């Protein structure tokens, strides 16, 4: 590759880079701009759902001095009847 060819190639690469940079600049300049985070907070009402929490029980209440409902667990005991089928 001679010296002239190298010079032409360098010029072509430089010009191409500049042209593509210019096209990209113009495209971005005309694109739709995203809303900024600050705009979201100023233009919309944000609803936060809250959960009603039961009041924390006092130590006296935990000791069983109140009439709190008691959740009973199903019994797992099975009474086996004494009379049996046996079989003959």
């Amino acid at each position, binding site marked *: 590759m001679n010296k002239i060819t190298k010079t032409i190639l360098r010029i072509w690469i430089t010009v191409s880079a500049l042209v593509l940079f210019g096209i990209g600049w113009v495209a971005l300049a005309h694109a739709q701009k995203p809303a900024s985070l600050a705009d979201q907070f100023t233009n919309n009402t944000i609803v936060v759902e809250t959960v009603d929490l039961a009041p924390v029980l006092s130590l006296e209440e935990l000791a069983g001095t109140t009439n709190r409902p008691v959740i009973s667990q199903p019994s797992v005991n*099975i*009474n*086996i*009847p*004494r*009379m*049996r*089928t*046996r*079989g*003959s």
Partner: protein
Amino acid sequence: MEYDQFSAMNTLVQVAAQGERQDLAQGFERVRQFVEQSEERFSRFRETSELTRLNRSTGGWFYASPEMFDLVKAALKMHNLTGGLFDPSVLSALRQAGYDRSMDEIQQKGVPSARTDWRWTPSHFAETGLDPETHAIFLPQGSQIDLGGIAKGWIAASAAEQLSQFTDACAVSAGGDMALLGLPTGEPAWEISLEDPLDPEEVMAIMKVPAGGLATSTVTRRQWQQDGQTRHHIIDPRSGEPANTHWLSVTVHAPSAVAAEVFAKALLIAGPAEVQTLLSRVSGLQYSAVDRYGVINGNLKVTEIGYAPTTTF
């Protein structure tokens, strides 16, 4: 509820009665005496029993006690109701299968080999004659009978009837043939444990049943070996051989202990194919059957208790 239990008729007799122990003591004693007298009367293993004498009289009239007459009459009625599936005249087939001695003796000494010259002949039990006036019984020639199962049901019912003089609610079980009179106070039903036929120590389910009779027939409890084969005491009268059953045990609730015992045996022999036919013969029959995989079938409501039974037989 107060309980009493004792061994008789090669099985366990259980008694339950509501009331105070001291008030029931006389009733429990009366039950014991009645069962002992009944065993003497109905056992085919005792040379002096009334049944042994009746069996010696085939082909002629035998003047029986009111109790024997009552039981043979009930057996004849049940024979007809079950279409012949219940047949006490299978005694020769039982002997051929090796059950010619008590279970205690079989367990100790084993059984003889089957006779090669024996042939099963169709039953003639339906031709049995009864004379209500004299309590005479005519068994056809060669038609000897075994009253083992139905006698237990009859004994349980009769004993419960006697015990009812001392209590409002009682149950008598003769080897699983059970008579239930009245109901325990405040209870809508009797609660009975259903045994695993493969492991009598284990309970598979709990049954809630009204007053009446409850009985279980099984092919697993009275078993023995003969000529290298497993034999049992439930004889199919159609073949004269130990029944080849679909189920291992059948429990029946019926209006009476006698009907429960007979239909438990008939259903066990007949299997699922003939259930509806048999149930239609007597009103108020309910059954629960256990197959060899431990599955409980039937229209008798049970509460399974989650026990996983043995699945080999």
